[in-house]
């Protein structure tokens, strides 16, 4: 098979029965609940766009395992061109959804685990890579949407996993059986968790020997016994269930990917789905490779979203009669400058990518971390400019229910109108879209998605060749013995 359509994906969600809670209630069918439909629509587009002639070249590729045509999101990158293709595909998708489509996380996990299982086997003589390749073939054949589950709740952050008062603050192995393992703990902020078919669990930090039980990487189907999903609230999420469409801003695709707290309450994982168990000395490698792949993305997808936000802001300025003011034009140019700077970063870290021992490619880690660190700033700056241009109505606008009210609707129409030839409805729709993209959850996602800024700084600190920089300066300043650097 190799490639499915968006509706096949929706049907696949109806076939599984995950335990999902939202607003204090257990959800019967994720695929049919209004709280999740926008996130499912966004993920479904990763399938449907792969079939569209216009996007096929970006969203499909050839499996290095079978030679068959597959969806990009199940591919393991084998060149820098592949890495660039991913960034371009993410931008194209972001332009169409204006929101997170969630599928990149599992994709990045596939790439990271593929290489680390190979490295572990080379050193230890284990057979994780073979198991993983078999798993990857299944994923490619079914075009399966999987999530990447890395972040643990972490408890007291001053202590390593093995010294936590509550051992479950990090996912760990509680029992080793002949045919598999039992894991306990939780993963937090997992994007697409409730609308995926399974989770690739990975350690969240570098580990020492005492933490060996926490060095666990495995695949868990979304409806495995003991697995519980608690879906997170988002800013204005009750608008999704209120019957309002305009007030949602982006009713079809929502504002973020849809995150959940995923609890592993003694979940059994069969041996063939275990890809790391106790190899604490490879935990950092896995974290770094996953983080690099994921941080590489943010100058792709977020730039696609920035294209939408800039377009909405420009259109709103036209509707409000301010588009020709020089300061507005200057601010719009600034938005594009910020967005394209992020795109430059993602393209650069992809072009500077390199091969790993397993033969697959990863982006340059230093530049990928710079990309994501910039995202934690530039997206906020773009949002600030959009809100500046939008004006205070962004925060004070009446509901679409009042606009549709027989008594007061005429006042909303009259007093929310901008230029004469454009109805108030147009202005309201643009304002709601900008509100969704710049107020609340969507912004925090840019800050903490793929790791908080400090996580990027730590990687940048590790990857910067400080001693060489120092020697360069010492040489020019004629300090001490002159090192030969050229």
């Amino acid at each position, binding site marked *: 098979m190799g490639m499915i359509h968006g509706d096949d994906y929706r049907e696949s969600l109806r076939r599984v029965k995950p335990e999902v809670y939202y607003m204090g209630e257990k959800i019967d069918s994720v695929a049919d609940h209004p709280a999740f439909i926008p996130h499912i629509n966004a993920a479904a587009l990763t399938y449907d766009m792969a079939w569209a*002639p*216009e*996007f*096929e*070249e*970006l*969203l499909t590729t050839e499996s290095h395992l079978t030679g068959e045509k597959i969806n990009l999101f199940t591919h393991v990158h084998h060149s820098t061109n592949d890495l660039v*293709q991913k960034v*371009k*595909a993410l*931008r*194209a998708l972001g*332009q169409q959804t204006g929101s997170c489509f969630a599928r990149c996380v599992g994709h990045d996990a596939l790439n990271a685990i593929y290489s680390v299982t190979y490295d572990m086997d080379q050193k230890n003589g284990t057979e994780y890579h073979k198991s993983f390749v078999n798993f990857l073939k299944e994923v490619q054949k079914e075009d399966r949407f999987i999530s990447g589950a890395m972040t643990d709740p972490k408890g007291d952050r001053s202590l390593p996993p093995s010294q936590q008062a509550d051992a479950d603050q990090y996912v760990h192995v509680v029992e080793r059986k002949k045919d598999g393992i039992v894991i306990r703990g939780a993963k937090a902020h997992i994007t697409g968790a409730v609308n995926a078919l399974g989770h690739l669990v990975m350690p969240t930090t570098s580990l020492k020997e005492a933490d060996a039980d926490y060095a666990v990487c495995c695949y868990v189907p979304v409806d495995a016994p003991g697995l519980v999903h608690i879906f997170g609230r988002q800013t204005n999420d009750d608008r999704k269930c209120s019957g309002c469409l305009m007030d949602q801003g982006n009713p079809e695709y929502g504002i973020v990917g849809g995150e959940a707290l995923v609890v592993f309450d003694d979940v059994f994982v069969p041996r063939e789905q275990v890809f790391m168990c106790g190899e604490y000395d490879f935990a950092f490698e896995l974290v770094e490779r996953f983080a690099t792949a994921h941080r590489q993305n943010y100058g792709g997808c977020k730039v696609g979203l920035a*294209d939408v936000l800039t377009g909405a802001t420009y259109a709103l300025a036209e509707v409000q009669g301010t588009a020709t003011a020089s300061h507005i034009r200057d601010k719009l140019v600034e938005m594009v400058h910020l967005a394209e700077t992020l795109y430059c970063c993602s393209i650069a870290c992809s072009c500077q990518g390199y091969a790993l021992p397993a033969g697959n490619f990863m982006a340059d880690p230093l530049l990928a971390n710079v990309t994501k660190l910039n995202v934690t700033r530039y997206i906020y700056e773009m949002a600030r400019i959009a809100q500046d241009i939008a004006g205070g109505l962004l925060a004070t606008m009446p509901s679409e229910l009042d606009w549709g009210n027989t008594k007061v609707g005429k006042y909303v129409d009259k007093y929310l109108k901008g230029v004469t030839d454009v109805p108030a409805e147009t202005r309201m729709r643009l304002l709601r879209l900008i509100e969704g993209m710049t107020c609340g959850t969507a912004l925090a996602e840019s800050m903490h998605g793929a790791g908080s800024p400090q996580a990027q700084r730590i990687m940048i600190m590790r990857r910067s060749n400080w001693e060489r920089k120092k020697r360069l300066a010492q040489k020019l300043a004629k300090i001490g013995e002159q090192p030969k650097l050229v």
Partner: protein
Amino acid sequence: MKVAVKYCGSCNPEIALSDVGHKIERALQEAPGINVVSRRSKPIDVMVILCGCPRACGDKKRIRKRAVHCIVVAGETIDLVPVAEKDLTARVVQKVKSFSSAEN
């Protein structure tokens, strides 16, 4: 004459690539003697490679190999010659026809 259309991937097109592509396909379908076929069919006489910008990502060896002739639209250019977006359809059709008459 069998003609196929292939897109670059549309990551951030500088022209309305889908619209341009649909117009070109429609115009080619209406032109006498031209048969628009799937980009995977064989043989193909002319492959129209539609790219949204001058980077021309769709212009790849493996795609060129599929056809006897190729026409590369890359933003507001056809085979590196500047052409306004509004004129792209007519110029592509004209170029396809020129291959046809040359072979006759």
